[in-house]
């Protein structure tokens, strides 16, 4: 009787031991038979005893558990004097006096030094103290703290506490916020005492409701940590504590300026149809901008305008557009309603819907997870989140699917050879075994991942590299172009690239987006496990299976009906008109079930000019084209507002197919067009307000909220409900600015 046989059957032997045992089994038929029996019996036990679907906590229980997750842990034991409640008051008073002196000397080093050892300034309760220190230790224990600012950046900012988005609660804070803090190093000693009065919770912190409890200590930490406090603090301190904390928790209305790199967006202007009757752009199913914006708003930070890509906000949400008929991969529809921010203008919606593929009908997937395990990935919202996310994905895969894991840091390696999902345990173990450390060399990792994908490449399968990273390619090839060229070349061979972005601070947003585009893939930003669930599970077949590639949209406007138009968003997706028919020109892809929505703001011909004055004076020499063309047949095309043309390729095709939809405007209102249109218009308005778009002058947050509330519809997955809350937060952040 050999325990090794059982261990072998349960895959508990190390690779060497297993190999040695296999060699032994090969020469010993009796032992081999025994091993086979044990293996099949263990499989029986595993299948009979493993958890069943229905065996879960009740939803109420899960909620109460999750509520407990939001509470700061109670003190371990009154070991240190400052954890002792009785002593705390005295200590905090003393230290408060001490810190009042310190606060007037702003150098950062001082602040850092004092922070961990002056718990009493935030000394409202043991939890507060421990929280700061805990964060410090977490940072500190990660071998190095490169510069002071890096560690400051991880200090909590209270914003995410005071909002109703629990799962975001403990992500490491946005670096930008910390930078703002350090740069605006205006301490004011006086408000300290007021603040303490305003927010000191009852002595028994445990008796506090979870939300309130969670908010208080951090707000205090942050404030004592050097945030500029508004002058009218005293007034605010009279408000309900949580409310007042929320208000001065963050530099109000500050725009996040951080190491996150965003390419500037220059908003599409109104274009006169007479000059440019055709508008061309690439489809886009990326949604990363929404997660980024959500993260910042949940931190009570005003998102950087260049992080707000309106098309990605709009496309984040599922819409119930009609599915394509007669076996086509795409369906196109277009309609119009009034523009909520300028009722004289019309809002044209172009809606694309990709064919749905039931999960069990999809082609087998040949996936390679390319995972960044550099040192920057170690925080909980990076590698650990990626690991959890990939677990979710792998658990959904079937036996025909294959998964390989390649990691890269200082050097890259194959952590798991391409493995059939019949051996899920092995895949999951490989994912769980990943640890972060070292520098990043993105390019060579990508090459290795493509090699793995090529090993099991089958043209009819879904071949995809899924890059999981914070986008910090800080060693070796820095050239975006070089990486993109590689990715585009591989996409040409049939291996596509999707990107899951995580983390804050050195998130190379534009680089990731560019790479996913070149790789015929999509780019999603994961800020939480629930976002991973959306990206990888709810839309898994979409993330994995492309049904149409190089989807381009061209809209031709009828000058008889339209004076000028403005494409809302898609600034980075604009194409030249001639690119539309050029099959060599790359464009966005659509996965199974994806929807793409594009909105145009249209100035009807009878209005002539968007702002009462033409952007360019009327042409003196050219034929004015704002009158209906003389040879147009009345009644057939002259009533049309526009024609929407869509070009796409089937995933394995090289030549494109064309869909063409003429669009008339029967003059319907948003109300009549139904919830999806209203909601999309509301999301676009939200983006315009956040971007401080010149077109949003007459748009209010109330209008946006009314639109999205009316457009909420059934919202089975709860995305729209979450967005409505986000509108409130955005309004709060932007009102404070004024």
């Amino acid at each position, binding site marked *: 009787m050999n325990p090794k046989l059982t261990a072998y059957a349960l895959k508990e032997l190390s690779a060497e031991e297993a190999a040695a045992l296999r060699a032994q089994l090969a020469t010993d038929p009796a032992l081999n038979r025994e091993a086979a029996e044990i293996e099949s019996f263990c499989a029986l036990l595993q299948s009979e005893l493993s958890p069943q679907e229905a065996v879960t906590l009740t939803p109420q229980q899960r909620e109460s558990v999750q509520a407990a997750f939001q509470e700061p*842990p109670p003190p371990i034991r009154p070991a240190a004097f400052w954890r002792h409640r009785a002593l705390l008051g005295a200590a905090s008073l003393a230290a408060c006096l001490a810190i009042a002196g310190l606060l007037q000397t702003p150098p950062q080093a001082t602040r850092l030094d004092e922070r961990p050892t002056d718990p009493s300034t935030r000394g409202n309760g043991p939890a507060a103290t421990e929280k700061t220190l805990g964060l410090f230790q977490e940072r500190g224990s990660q071998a190095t703290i490169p510069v002071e600012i890096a560690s400051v950046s991880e200090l909590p900012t209270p914003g995410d506490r005071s909002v109703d988005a629990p799962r975001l609660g403990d992500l490491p804070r946005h670096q930008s916020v910390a930078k703002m803090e350090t740069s605006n190093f205006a301490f004011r000693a006086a408000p300290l005492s007021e603040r303490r009065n305003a927010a000191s919770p009852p002595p028994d912190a445990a008796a506090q409701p979870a939300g309130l409890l969670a908010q208080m200590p951090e707000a205090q930490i942050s404030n004592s940590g050097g945030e500029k406090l508004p002058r009218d603090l005293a007034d605010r301190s009279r408000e309900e504590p949580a409310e007042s904390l929320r208000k001065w928790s963050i530099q109000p209305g500050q725009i996040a300026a951080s190491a996150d790199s965003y390419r500037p967006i220059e908003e599409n202007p109104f274009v006169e149809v007479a000059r440019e009757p055709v508008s061309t752009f690439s489809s886009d199913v990326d949604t990363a901008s929404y997660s980024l914006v959500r993260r910042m708003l949940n931190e009570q930070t005003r998102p950087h305008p260049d992080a707000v890509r309106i098309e990605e906000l709009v496309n984040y949400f599922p819409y119930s557009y009609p599915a394509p008929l007669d076996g086509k991969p795409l369906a196109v529809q277009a309609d119009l309603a009034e523009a909520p921010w300028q009722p004289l203008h019309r809002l044209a919606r172009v809606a694309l819907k990709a064919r749905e593929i039931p999960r069990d009908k999809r082609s087998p997937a040949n996936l390679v997870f390319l995972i960044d395990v550099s040192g920057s990935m170690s925080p909980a919202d990076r590698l650990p989140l990626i690991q959890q996310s990939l677990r979710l994905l792998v658990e959904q895969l079937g036996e025909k699917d294959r998964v390989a894991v390649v990691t890269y840091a200082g050097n890259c390696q194959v952590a798991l050879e391409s493995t059939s999902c019949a051996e899920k345990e092995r895949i999951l173990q490989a994912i769980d075994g990943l640890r972060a450390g070292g520098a990043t060399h993105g390019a060579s990792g990508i090459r290795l991942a493509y090699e793995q994908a090529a090993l099991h490449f089958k043209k009819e399968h879904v071949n995809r590299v899924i890059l999981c990273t914070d986008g910090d390619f800080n060693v070796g090839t820095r050239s975006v172009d070089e990486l993109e060229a590689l990715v585009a070349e591989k996409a040409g061979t049939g291996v596509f690239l999707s990107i899951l972005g995580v983390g804050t601070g050195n998130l190379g947003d534009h680089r990731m987006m560019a790479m996913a585009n070149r790789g015929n893939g999509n780019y999603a930003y994961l800020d939480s496990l629930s976002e991973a669930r959306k990206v990888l599970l709810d839309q898994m077949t979409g993330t994995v299976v492309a049904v149409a590639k190089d989807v381009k949209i061209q809209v031709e406007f009828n000058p008889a009906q339209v004076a000028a138009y403005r494409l809302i968003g898609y600034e980075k997706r604009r194409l030249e008109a001639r690119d539309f028919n050029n099959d060599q020109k790359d464009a966005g892809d659509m996965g199974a079930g994806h929807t793409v929505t594009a909105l145009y703001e249209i100035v009807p011909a009878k209005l002539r000019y968007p702002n009462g004055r033409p952007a360019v004076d009327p042409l003196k020499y050219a034929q004015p084209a704002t009158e209906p063309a003389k040879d147009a047949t009345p009644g057939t095309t002259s009533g049309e507002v526009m024609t929407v043309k869509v070009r796409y390729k089937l995933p394995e095709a090289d030549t494109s197919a064309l869909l063409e939809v003429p669009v008339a405007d029967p003059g319907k209102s948003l109300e009549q067009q139904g919830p999806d249109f209203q909601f999309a218009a509301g999301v676009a308005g939200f983006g315009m307000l956040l971007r401080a778009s010149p077109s949003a002058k007459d748009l209010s947050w109330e209008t946006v909220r009314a639109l999205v509330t009316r457009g909420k519809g059934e919202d089975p997955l709860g995305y729209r409900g979450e967005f409505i809350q986000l509108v409130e937060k955005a309004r709060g952040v932007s009102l404070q600015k004024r």
Partner: protein
Amino acid sequence: MHISMQEPPSPPPDPLFLEATLARFEKPLLNYCLGIVEDLHQARDIVQETFIKLAQNLATVDRTRVAPWLFTVCRNRALDHVRKHRNVIPMETEAFEHEPATAPDPAVVMEQRETAHLIRHWIGLLPEKQREAVRLKFEAGLSYQEISEALQTSPGNVGTLIHLGVQALRQRWAQQNPSPRL
């Protein structure tokens, strides 16, 4: 500059880690607990308590060893419950086999219970250590390493316990299955 620490701090609430832990262990833990208390409502309550306790004790829990921690806490609570409600302290095999109330006639068991219940019944008859190891392996899906930490023994010993347990179960299976005496 490095930050010097004087006091061992406790970390802040960490919903992300806890959510991930919940997602990973909810079902295994519940399944495991169910194996002990044999009552879904009780098992749910115990697992709920276990996760809340984890949240409260996060400061002192080694996050790389969260599985052993969870299963140890859960087992202790489950056994407490069983003790209270059965007035029988589950001990060694013999105690169970001579307990008429909890061990109905095998033939009845065979007829009435499905394979899973049958196997669970046999697991209940294993010596305590083997029983625990087998449950943690098959009901909870832990690795030998994790089991060794939960049971505070060596991984090698876990291998032996599981091997012995599996062999015993196999024997019963072999006895019952080729020639079932119904």
